[in-house]
C-alpha cells in the first residue's frame, strides 16, 4: 500500500512510525518542507521516497501525489488544510485523511469555533468578543477585565496573553499592557489575509489542561486516549507559550487527574461540536479532530480551542501504546468506513514525551535556527525510548541543523511514571548542541511532583464546578452593575 504523508515535523514522524507497523506493508512517501532526517529514514526504509516541497501549496503537493499515485494521503498539519491542499487532493480523486479547508475553519478561526459553540448551545463554551478593526478593539479594551487576548486566527500556538485581572490595585497596569498588546497583535495579524477577525478577547479561566483527540469519518467517532501537553517554555510552568514542550499520557484512556466522567463529558462535547460543524459547513469531517480542553471551576470540561488535526507533541505519546493497526484505521476513516473499527491501546502503560528546543524558541526563532545538533539515537534506544525528529534539517554536509522550533521529541513509556521519567531524563542527555548554542527542555514534565500538583489542582477545580453544578450555575458568570442590572458578561473589568 502506498501512503503519502504531508508534513515535516514531530507529529508526522510519530504518524510515520505508527503507519509503518501496519500489516498492509505501507511504502511511505513524505512531502515535507525541509529534509527532516527522521521522516527521510522512515520513507527510505519502507521503500518509499521523500519530496521537498512547499506543503501549503496545493499545486506542489498535487504534483507529488500525481507522481506517487498513493492509495492513501494523510495530511498532518493544519496549514496545508487551511490552504486547500486536502480539498485539491480530494477533487483529484485521492483518498485523503485530513480535514477539508471548510472543516479546518474550526481551528483556523477562533471566532468561528466559539460562535459555533454558542449558536448550538454546546457545553464548555466561553464568553468572547472579536474585533476586525483596531479602533473597536481599543474602545473595548479600556473596559476589559479578567481576560485572555488571542490572535483570532491559529498562529502556531503563539500570541496568547493571559492577564489575570482579579485585583483592582493592579488593574491599571494590566490595562496598559492590554492596550499596548492589542496594537502589537493587530500589526502582527495584518500579515494574515485569510481572515476577517484579527483579535479575540476571551473570558479567562484557570484549571488543568488536557487534550482530547478523536478520529472520525464524519459519522463514527473513535476517541484517542487523553494526553496532557505543557505549553510553558520553561520548567515549573514558567515563561512564554510554546507549541508544547512535552506531554504525558496514561495509564489507560484517562489521566491521573481526570475522571472517567470528565473524559466522557469531554468526548461528548467534542462530538457535539463536530456535529454542529458539519451541519454548518455542510460537509463530512474526515480526519483527526481535537479539543484543547481545560478542567475549570466554571464548567468542568471547558473548551480552550480546537485542532483540525492530531496534536503535536500529543501524537507522539501514542507511538508506544497503540496496539491496533493504525494505518488501517486512518484508511477506514478516509474511505468513510470507520463504523465498527476499534482502537486498542496498551492500557497498562504510561508515556512521557519531552521536546528539546534551541534558546530563542518560541519568541525569536531566527536566533534559534541554524545551529548544528546531534542525537545519539542508539543511546536513546538502549533506554527503550524513541527519538522523533521535528524542526531539524539534514544538510548536504551530513550535519543536522535546528530550524528554530522544537528539534527533537523523546518518547519513553513504562508501566509507571517514575520509571518512564527516570529513563527519559537519561535519554535527553543524548542530545547535544554542536556549536555550544544553549538548548532547553523541561525536566519537570512527567515528574511525580508535577503530577501531584496537577492532581491537587484538579481536585480544587472539581470542588468548584461540582458545587456550581448543584446550584445550576455551570457556565454562568453573573455581573451586577447597579442601575443597569444583572448581566452575563465576565469580560468587563474594574476600571470604568
Amino acid at each position, binding site marked *: 500500500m502506498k501512503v503519502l504523508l504531508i508534513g515535516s515535523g514531530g507529529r508526522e514522524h510519530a504518524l510515520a512510525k505508527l503507519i509503518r507497523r501496519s500489516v498492509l506493508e505501507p511504502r511511505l512517501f513524505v512531502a515535507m518542507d525541509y529534509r527532516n532526517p527522521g521522516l527521510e529514514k522512515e520513507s527510505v526504509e519502507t521503500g518509499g521516497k521523500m519530496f521537498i516541497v512547499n506543503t501549503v501549496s496545493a499545486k506542489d503537493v498535487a504534483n507529488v501525489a500525481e507522481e506517487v499515485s498513493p492509495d492513501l494521503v494523510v495530511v498532518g498539519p493544519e496549514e496545508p488544510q487551511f490552504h486547500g491542499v486536502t480539498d485539491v487532493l480530494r477533487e483529484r480523486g485521492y483518498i485523503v485523511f485530513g480535514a477539508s479547508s471548510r472543516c479546518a475553519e474550526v481551528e483556523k478561526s477562533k471566532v468561528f469555533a466559539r460562535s459555533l459553540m454558542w449558536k448550538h448551545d454546546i457545553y464548555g463554551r466561553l464568553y468572547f468578543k472579536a474585533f476586525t478593526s483596531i479602533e473597536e478593539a481599543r474602545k473595548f479594551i479600556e473596559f476589559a477585565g479578567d481576560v485572555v487576548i488571542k490572535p483570532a486566527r491559529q498562529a502556531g500556538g503563539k500570541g496568547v496573553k493571559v492577564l489575570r485581572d482579579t485585583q483592582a490595585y493592579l488593574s*491599571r497596569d494590566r490595562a*496598559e499592557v492590554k492596550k499596548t498588546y492589542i496594537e502589537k497583535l493587530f500589526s502582527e495579524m495584518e500579515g494574515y489575509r485569510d481572515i476577517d477577525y484579527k483579535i479575540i478577547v476571551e473570558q479567562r479561566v484557570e484549571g488543568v489542561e488536557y487534550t482530547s483527540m478523536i478520529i472520525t469519518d464524519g459519522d463514527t467517532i473513535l476517541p484517542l486516549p487523553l494526553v496532557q501537553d505543557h505549553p510553558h517554555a520553561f520548567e515549573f510552568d514558567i*515563561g*512564554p507559550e510554546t507549541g508544547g514542550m512535552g506531554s504525558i499520557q496514561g495509564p489507560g484512556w484517562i489521566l491521573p487527574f481526570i475522571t472517567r466522567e470528565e473524559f466522557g463529558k469531554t468526548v461528548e462535547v467534542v462530538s457535539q461540536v463536530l456535529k454542529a460543524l458539519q451541519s454548518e459547513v455542510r460537509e463530512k469531517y474526515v480526519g483527526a479532530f481535537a479539543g484543547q480542553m481545560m478542567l475549570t471551576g466554571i464548567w468542568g470540561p471547558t473548551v480552550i480551542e480546537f485542532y483540525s488535526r492530531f496534536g503535536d507533541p500529543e501524537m507522539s505519546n501514542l507511538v508506544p501504546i497503540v496496539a491496533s493497526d493504525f494505518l488501517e484505521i486512518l484508511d477506514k476513516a478516509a474511505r468513510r468506513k470507520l463504523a465498527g473499527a476499534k482502537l486498542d491501546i496498551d492500557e497498562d502503560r504510561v508515556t512521557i514525551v519531552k521536546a528539546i528546543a534551541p534558546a530563542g524558541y518560541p519568541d525569536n526563532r531566527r536566533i534559534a535556527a541554524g545551529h548544528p545538533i546531534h542525537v545519539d539515537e542508539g543511546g536513546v534506544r538502549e533506554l527503550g525510548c524513541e527519538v522523533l525528529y521535528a524542526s531539524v534539517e539534514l544538510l548536504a554536509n551530513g550535519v543536522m541543523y535546528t530550524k528554530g522550533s522544537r528539534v527533537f521529541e523523546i518518547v519513553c513509556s513504562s508501566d509507571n511514571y517514575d520509571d518512564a521519567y527516570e529513563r527519559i531524563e537519561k535519554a535527553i542527555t543524548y542530545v547535544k548542541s554542536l556549536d555550544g548554542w544553549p538548548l*532547553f527542555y523541561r525536566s519537570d514534565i512527567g515528574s511525580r511532583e508535577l503530577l501531584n500538583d496537577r492532581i491537587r489542582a484538579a481536585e480544587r477545580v472539581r470542588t468548584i464546578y461540582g458545587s456550581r453544578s448543584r446550584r445550576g450555575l455551570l457556565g454562568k458568570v453573573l455581573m451586577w452593575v447597579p442601575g443597569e442590572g444583572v448581566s452575563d458578561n465576565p469580560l468587563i473589568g474594574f476600571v470604568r
Partner: protein
Amino acid sequence: MGSLLAIYAFDELWNLSNIVRYGLMSLQHRGAQNFVVCIPGERVKCLHSENIDEVSRGASKNVALAVIGNDSDNMLIEVDDSGVVAIASERSWDGASRALQALSNAFSNGGDPVTSFISTLNRVSDDVAPSMAVLTKRGELVIWRSPSSFSPLVLGSYGFDMAIVSSESVAIDILGGDVKRFLKPGEGIYIAKYIVKHFTAGVSEHRGLCTFELLYLARHDAIVDGVSVYEFRKHLGRELAKYLESDVDVVVGVPETALPYAIGFAEVIKKPFEMAFMATGGRRRSMLFSDPFEKIVSIHLKMNPIRGVLEGKRVALVDDSMVTGSTIKTVSQILRFRVGVPEVHLFIASPPLIMPCPFSVLRLDMKGLLAANLSQSLARDYLEVDSLHWLSKEDVDRVASRFGLKLCGKCFGVDFFGCRK
C-alpha cells in the same frame, strides 16, 4: 535579615513600577526599614529609600530586583564599579565583595551565567554564603537559595508573562501569580529572555529554616516550603492546651501573630476565643525593631483593649514566643489595670529562649532574654501572671516533624526541630 523579591517579565512591554510597589508592600511585615530596587540598563541602577513608593517608581523596566532590609546601615545590595552586576544578599557576609568582583568578571567575559555563578560560589566559600539574587545589566537574574540560609525562597509565575521569586509566598499571591515551586536549599534559577535554567549549587548541609520564620515572621497566609503557616501556628496552639491546669473563661491571643495559636488553643479547651486588642496605625512588627524605644512604642500602639468582653473573666493569654517579656508585661498590665481581669494564665507556643542566635538572624541579647535570666517564679511575678507555661522542645520537634519541616533551634538550646534529613 533581608528579604528578596525579583520579577522578570518576558514581554518587554511591562512596566513593573506598580507591581514592585505592591510586591514590597506584601513583604513589609518582614522588616520595613529600608528598600532597594535595582533595574538593568547600560549599568545596573539601584535606588535606596525608606519609602516604598520612591524606590518602586524607579522600577520602570520589565526586570526588577528588590530587597527589604531592617537596618539602614546594612548594605544588602552591592553593585560593582562597572555596573555589570548587582548582588542582593539576604544578610551581609564576608565574601560579598569577592563574590561581586568574581561575578562581575565572569559576566563581562560572557561565560555561561549558571556555571559562572556556581564556580564563584565554590571559590568564595559556599559554606557561609546567604541566599542571593543577582541582576546583570543585560537584565538576567540568578537567584539561589543557600543551604545555609534560614529563610525560604519561592518561585511563582503570572500567566505566560512573568516569573516572580520571593522570600515569602504572599508576594506571588498579591501580584496575582501562582506559586510554582518552593526552592529547596541549594536550588537556584537563572532567568533570561530566551532561557530559564534550574540548577543546584552548594554542598553544605541544610541548616534548617529559622524557627521564627514559622513562629513569627511569615504572614498567616504564607505557605513556607509547602507548609501553611496558619495551620502550623494553630497546631502549636492545640499542643499548648494540654498545659492548662486551672479553669479559664476566655482565650486571648497577643495581636496579631498569636491569633491562630489562640484559636487552636480555644478549640481544644472549648472556651471562646475573643478579640482583646485593637491596633492603631497599621501593622507594626515590634520584634523587628532594634531600638528599644521604637519597639515599646509599637507594642503600645497595638494594645488598646476591648473592655466589655474581658472584664471579670479569667484569661488564658497566648503568645507565639517570649524574648524579653516586654510585650507580655504590657499586655498583662493592660488586662489587669485597664480591663480588670482577675486571672491571667500565660501560654507561650515555643520553648524558653535561652541562647543568642549564633547566626545573627535574630538580634537576641543574652542579657535581655527573660527565660535565660529569670527563674520561673520570678518571671511570673514580674509579668504579673498567675501561671506561665511553655511548649517543650519535644512538642515543637514533634509538630515540626509532622509538617515535614527542619527548623534551626539553636536559640532554644537544640540544633534542630523536626526532620533531620
